[in-house]
């Protein structure tokens, strides 16, 4: 699909699109199992079939989507879910700022559109690329669209297939959820400096979950962990 649309472009653009395709391929394979698990879990939490690709297509941020599904109720707590989404994705602010100096040659409106697709992996690939040879928009968009399509399609397949195998929930299937989170957290690990804020966040959240009404444990835990990181950053 990418290759076909690139055939009308000048050769250099076409090469960049193909280069993006090659970079994206192994990551796409990694996205599929995450997407299947997310789609299946969202359906277990009461998402309608169309709501799963709607969420992953409009939001396109795996960590925040797993968090939203974990906190999902019917009807959802809008403020909690939107707030958690913002916090989980707040790392994009730093990523965008790091990429910004390489984007000066690109018209702002075009870039505002293209940044919709920026995810951790695209950002890492494009920034490495930009440092070597300058930012390449065809390369960035090629990687972005490959990953975007595999995420939306993967989660949609999970949403269709999940309820078919629904019965496995009683065999410990709910442990798939913390398992995915642990793997996501491993990717965010920044050495031992991460241990204390995370530990405090978890401890406060567990305590808040046991004594306070539902909905308080995530903001209280996250704010406590953030406060520890704030104190740590001084030394």
């Amino acid at each position, binding site marked *: 699909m990418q290759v076909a649309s690139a055939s009308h472009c000048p050769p250099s653009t076409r090469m960049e699109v193909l280069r993006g395709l090659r970079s994206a391929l192994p990551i796409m394979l990694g996205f599929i199992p995450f997407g299947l698990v997310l789609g299946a879990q969202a359906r277990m939490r009461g998402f309608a079939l169309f709501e799963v690709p709607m969420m992953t297509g409009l939001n396109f941020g795996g960590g925040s989507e797993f968090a939203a599904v974990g906190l999902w109720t019917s009807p959802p707590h809008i403020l909690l879910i939107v707030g958690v989404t913002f916090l989980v994705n707040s790392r994009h602010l730093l990523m965008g700022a790091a990429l910004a100096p390489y984007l000066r040659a690109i018209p702002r409106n075009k870039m*505002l559109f293209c940044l919709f697709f920026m995810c951790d992996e695209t950002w890492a690939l494009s920034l490495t690329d930009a440092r070597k040879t300058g930012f390449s928009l065809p390369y960035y968009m090629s990687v972005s669209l490959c990953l975007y399509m595999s995420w939306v399609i993967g989660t949609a397949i999970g949403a269709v297939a999940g309820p078919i195998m629904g019965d496995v929930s009683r065999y410990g299937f709910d442990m798939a959820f913390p398992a995915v*989170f642990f793997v996501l957290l491993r990717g965010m690990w920044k050495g031992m400096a991460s241990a204390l804020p995370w530990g405090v966040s978890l401890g406060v959240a567990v305590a808040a979950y046991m004594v306070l009404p539902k909905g308080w444990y995530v903001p209280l835990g996250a704010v406590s962990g953030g406060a520890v*990181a704030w104190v740590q950053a001084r030394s």
Partner: protein
Amino acid sequence: MGAGTVMTVLTLLLMALATYCTRIGGYLLLNRQHIAPRTAKVMEAAPGCVLIAVLAPDFASGRMADLLALTVTLVAAMRCSLLVTVLVGIGSGWFFRMILPS
């Protein structure tokens, strides 16, 4: 379209808006120098703190079988791929709940 669906769609739209703001926010600020190093550290720590707090109910269940399964899953997550970790999580959850009924 029922009231529940309207709430769901509204939540999903606002989620998408919040995420898009994080994607363009850094670009519009243009330069990392506008963010104080200390603020940057807190922003780096925030996503992990939020994700781990979301897991609180799993740790607060108080069931020995769940805590053992979580520990085994955590160890698996440090070394294995996603698929293996998920299988270890499901398998250990099934196993410990079978041998340690609550």
